[in-house]
């Protein structure tokens, strides 16, 4: 049976742990395996951290929404924010062949999301950034 939920948080790092707990609880309640729970947590943590860090041009409070939809074949995660236009998947890949100490750490999170999830999409719609990632079950 398809199941879904929408989680909302403010653009504050202190809201991340409640978001992680809610995500994990929802997925475990609906029998998602460890690999899926890990991938979902990774995508949400990396993408939402980026939004909070770089997404806004003011100091105001903003709402970020995370929609989880699980069916028999896949988990779909959709993250929406009203920050400035930014496509996280349109950034250069980090050079992982360099020695650890010479690396730029910045791009690593998105690199993980690209590799651990099965599809990653971005669109800009009505003043919002909408990122959708999918993990096959």
């Amino acid at each position, binding site marked *: 049976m398809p199941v879904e939920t929408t989680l909302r948080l403010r653009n504050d*790092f202190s809201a*991340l*742990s409640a978001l*992680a707990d809610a995500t994990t609880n929802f997925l475990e309640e609906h029998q998602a395996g*460890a*690999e899926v729970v*890990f*991938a979902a*947590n*990774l995508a949400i*943590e*990396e993408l939402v*951290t980026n939004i909070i860090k770089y997404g806004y041009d003011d100091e105001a409070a903003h709402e970020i929404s995370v929609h989880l939809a699980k069916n028999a074949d896949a988990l779909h995660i959709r993250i929406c924010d009203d920050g400035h236009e930014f496509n996280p998947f349109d950034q250069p890949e*980090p050079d*992982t*062949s360099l*020695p*650890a*100490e010479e690396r730029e*750490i910045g791009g*690593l*999170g998105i*690199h*993980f999301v690209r*590799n*651990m999830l099965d599809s990653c999409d971005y669109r800009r719609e009505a003043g919002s950034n909408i990122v959708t990632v999918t993990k096959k079950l």
Partner: protein
Amino acid sequence: MQITEHREGPILVIAVEGRLDHAGAGTFQEYTVKHINDGVRSMVVDFTGTTFVASMGIRAIIVPSQEMSRAGGRFGLTGLSPQLRQLFEISGLMKVFNTYPTLADAVADGVWV
């Protein structure tokens, strides 16, 4: 996230329970680097109880690994879940870190000082 430590012969074992995420990364990095600055030269981080690691957590593992190597000591990792191992592989770090299947394997390695 909770950090505990115990000794296994010459090795200081640091066990990480829970999430090594944005919130836990700074704490973990400070904790491990402080021990290295205080003279610890044989350290193994045990991830058996770690449920999640994000990119900030990976960065927080790289820092003490580098500090230990500069100090002439040895830094090992054990208890990697398949997902954590995958993150290390994706980031090209498996060849940088000394990893052991179990803590017993780490202890049995003859390299500790």
